[in-house]
């Protein structure tokens, strides 16, 4: 299970190999991000019957570079009311997790370099997939602190929305990851791709039923604050959202983090559900084919992300929370039980499926009952909107919990 690279002690060669892996991954991810920006703009303009960037470089390929250079040389504004330290820290907290998540993604098979067996991924910790969840939960900080430290209204609202959303969808995300772990018997990403290698019908997307994959896609889109879940930066309501006050390089970092997350999450989806680098290979340059397969699948996913962005309108905030808490979390939990049941035996799986359906009926019935009761109560209150003398007389007024109620509404 552990990394074969360290099997024979840690020598200079091993350290060099690790360093090279880190540097290559870092550089490749940066370049890919720039290409991703271009890709997204191009695809969207194509879908909207526009041409898109076409000036800098062939097909506008260097447009992102030009934009980056421009941002780099712009004036670096620091709002007067900003919390200086946190304001500077926040962009870093956004971008670093985006880089780090990629470290556990296996981009290819295994190669042998100077008698050392090297896995084509930066690291393969035994709790790999938890590492992913951990970092995606750290990513909340970047958004949250950026909005708060700006010392301004709309960024704060944007960041509160964003962090509530990210926390809410993390639960569903985690539960779908658990189904994958159940099926693969391991938390290590390498073991997860190995467990679904050789045949495409062993890919988790099929083995687990489509549901966990679908939930994962929705939840990860929400995690990234991408459309249709980009309430954090709803331009019409909040200006630019949490990063309104940012400019220059710091803004570029947020931008970078967003697109890097798109790539990373696509890569993670490929790893978890589509066999990672698995695919038919040929006998020439055997190490290359898995990498190509991985890249191809990832690009396909990136395209899907762009497609979603181009076609779906933004959700309303309460719809977003309803979807997360009342639909995705119960569904992923129920599916987890069903998967667990089927792993043990078909009978158990069927029984748990039945139980899940029953539970769903109960849940939706109770939600319906609650809504109806609330409506009738509202009607009663409207009818009795006359101040009445308090019966006891000696009691104090109710504790005003409205600020807290507000918190609940936002969805903690």
């Amino acid at each position: 299970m552990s990394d074969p690279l360290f099997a024979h002690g840690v020598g200079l060669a091993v350290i060099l190999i690790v360093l090279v892996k880190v540097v290559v991954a870092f550089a490749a991810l940066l370049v890919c991000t720039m290409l991703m920006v271009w890709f997204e703009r191009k695809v969207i303009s194509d879908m909207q019957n526009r041409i898109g960037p076409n000036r800098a470089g062939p097909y506008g390929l260097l447009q992102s570079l030009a934009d980056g250079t421009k941002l780099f040389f712009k004036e670096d504004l620091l709002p007067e009311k900003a919390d200086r330290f946190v304001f500077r820290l926040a962009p870093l907290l956004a971008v670093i997790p985006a880089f780090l998540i990629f470290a556990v993604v296996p981009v290819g098979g295994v190669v042998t370099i100077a008698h050392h067996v090297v896995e084509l991924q930066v690291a393969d910790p035994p709790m790999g997939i938890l590492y992913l969840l951990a970092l995606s939960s750290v990513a909340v900080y970047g958004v949250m602190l950026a909005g708060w430290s700006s010392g301004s209204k709309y960024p704060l609202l944007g960041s509160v929305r964003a962090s509530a959303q990210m926390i809410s969808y993390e639960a569903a995300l985690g539960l779908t990851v658990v189904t994958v772990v159940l099926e693969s018997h391991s938390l290590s990403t390498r073991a997860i791709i190995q467990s679904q290698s050789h045949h495409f019908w062993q890919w988790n997307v099929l083995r687990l039923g489509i549901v966990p994959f679908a939930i994962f896609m929705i939840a990860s889109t929400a995690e990234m604050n991408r459309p249709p879940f980009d309430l954090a930066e709803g331009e019409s309501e909040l200006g630019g959202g949490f990063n309104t006050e940012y400019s220059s390089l710091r803004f570029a970092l947020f931008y970078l983090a967003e697109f890097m997350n798109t790539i990373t999450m696509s890569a993670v989806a490929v790893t978890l559900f589509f066999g990672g680098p698995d695919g038919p290979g040929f006998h020439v340059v055997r190490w290359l084919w898995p990498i190509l397969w991985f890249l191809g699948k990832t690009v396909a996913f990136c395209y899907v992300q762009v497609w979603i962005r181009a076609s779906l309108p933004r959700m309303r905030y309460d719809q977003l929370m309803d979807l997360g808490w009342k639909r995705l979390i119960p569904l992923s939990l129920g599916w987890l039980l069903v998967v667990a049941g089927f792993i043990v035996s078909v009978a158990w799986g069927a029984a748990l499926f039945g139980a899940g359906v029953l539970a769903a009926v109960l849940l939706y019935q109770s939600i319906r009952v609650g809504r109806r009761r609330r409506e009738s109560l509202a009607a009663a209150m409207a009818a009795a909107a006359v101040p009445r003398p308090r019966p006891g007389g000696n009691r104090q007024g109710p504790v005003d919990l409205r600020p807290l109620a507000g918190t609940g509404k936002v969805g903690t």
Partner: protein
Amino acid sequence: MTGSTGVLGALAAHLLGAGGLVLPHLNYSTILPELILLGGMLVILAASALSPRPLPTEVYATATVGLGIASLIASLVLWRDVTSHGAFTAIARSIDVDGFAVFFLVVVSCILIVAPMFAAGYLRREGITGCEYYVLALISGSGAMFMASANDLILIFLGLEILSIPLYVLAGLDHRREASGEAAMKYFVLGAFSSAIFVYGIALTYGATGSTNLAEIGAFLSRNVITSNGVLLGGLALLLVGFAFKVAAVPFHMWTPDVYQGAPTPATGFMAAMAKAGGFAALLRVFVSTFPTLRTSWQPVVWVLAILTLVLGAVVAIVQNDVKRMLAYSSINHAGFVLLGLEAATARGIAGSLYYVFVYSLLVLGSFAVVAAVGGNGDADHDISRYRGLGRRRPVLAVGFAILLLAQAGAPFTTGFFSKFYVVEAAVAAHSYALAVIAMGSAGVAAFFYLRVVFVMFSDVGIAGASDVSRGGGEIARAGAVAAEVREQDATLLGGAGASAVATLVAPAYVAAPELAPEGTPSEPEVSVSPWVTTGLVLCVGATLVFGIWPQPLVDFAHQATLIF
């Protein structure tokens, strides 16, 4: 893989591989009372969510009483098992099934049978609908049961949390009164803090002994000679702090008066009964059965705790004019008496403590139920002046309350007398004479403030004024205490018997005269008692009198519980 391990076991075995994984046998019958409560709670919750219109509170109360009876029956079945097969541990040795555990299962079941009756009347009066009170009470009860039957420190901690969190919420159940929210907040913050201390204690104990399982800790300590046990003692100290907070022993009692006063009154009664039952169950088990080898280390600490608790609870209660707050301090005083049995650390002492906890739970539930009824709509005013002339207006209620208060004071022919008698006797038998004397003294002091309420109820004259009362009260109490103590020293030498009874008979003579002055126009609040509350009170008072006159069955039960464990 047996069938009873179910899908979870099968899954675990499947995922973790063969690797020598032996799944523990799940003997559900050993945790049946807990399961009944939790399952019933879920059913109630689902029913309340699914019913198209809010169900009346009495429906939930009935269901809760039913579940309490069911768990009582399950506990008694366990008792039969224990008496026929002896004590045993179950489910990976996490659950202890012994007389001690079953005794507390019975206590908790009884609390759960009585408490909903008091709550139903109150919630109906205050217009609080919904199943929350009952659901929280049931979960809390299951937590107390887990604490009682746990054989593992982690499980004790979980039980402690399952017990406490509903109590925090119950304290804040009344959204209308600010005091209720404040009580919840206070209890929650301090409770969470004490839980953290408790967990730290578990961590240190684990570090020192290599296990969280009480049996294994005991075995480890009996096998190994300890050269330097600083870590273990640190762990023990922190565990003791955690427990002392839960049972409100001085100096960890600061939350008690405010929380008891702020919480809705039936919730206060429930809180007092349940927290003490669960807290003392785990406290006694951990300290007496697991760390007997360290007795010389913890006994002095408990000694000091007991004295502080006894004295402070009694003395501060005297100056209270708010009956609810007075009962809060008196509950601290009672905790001191239970600690007496722990300090003795003998089978006799444990039996005394068990008996005391059982008796006290019913007494405190009943007392707070009367307080709730007299407090009237709004549950805010519990001044002693409200009780003026209660004996004339509601003679039966007043007599019932008087019996409960006298029992708490330790009057003869009530269970309270025997409970005090047994713990003091155990203390004397363990040669803790000073402690016994102080306990009797505090009982004498306590008799004063209970009797004050009784006198107010049955005399048609009012109270002069709050400040006079407290001033005069203090002096009288001191006099009473001295008098009681003098008598009790003799009594202690004779064997510690019945002295608090003497105090009860003596104290009134001091109490009556100066504090009561005629007053012209008493405004007499209406007191209404629902049939539910009446039923509950009849149960409480009945138990107090029946077992006070015929104490043998309950005493035998407590004794047997310690013999088997």
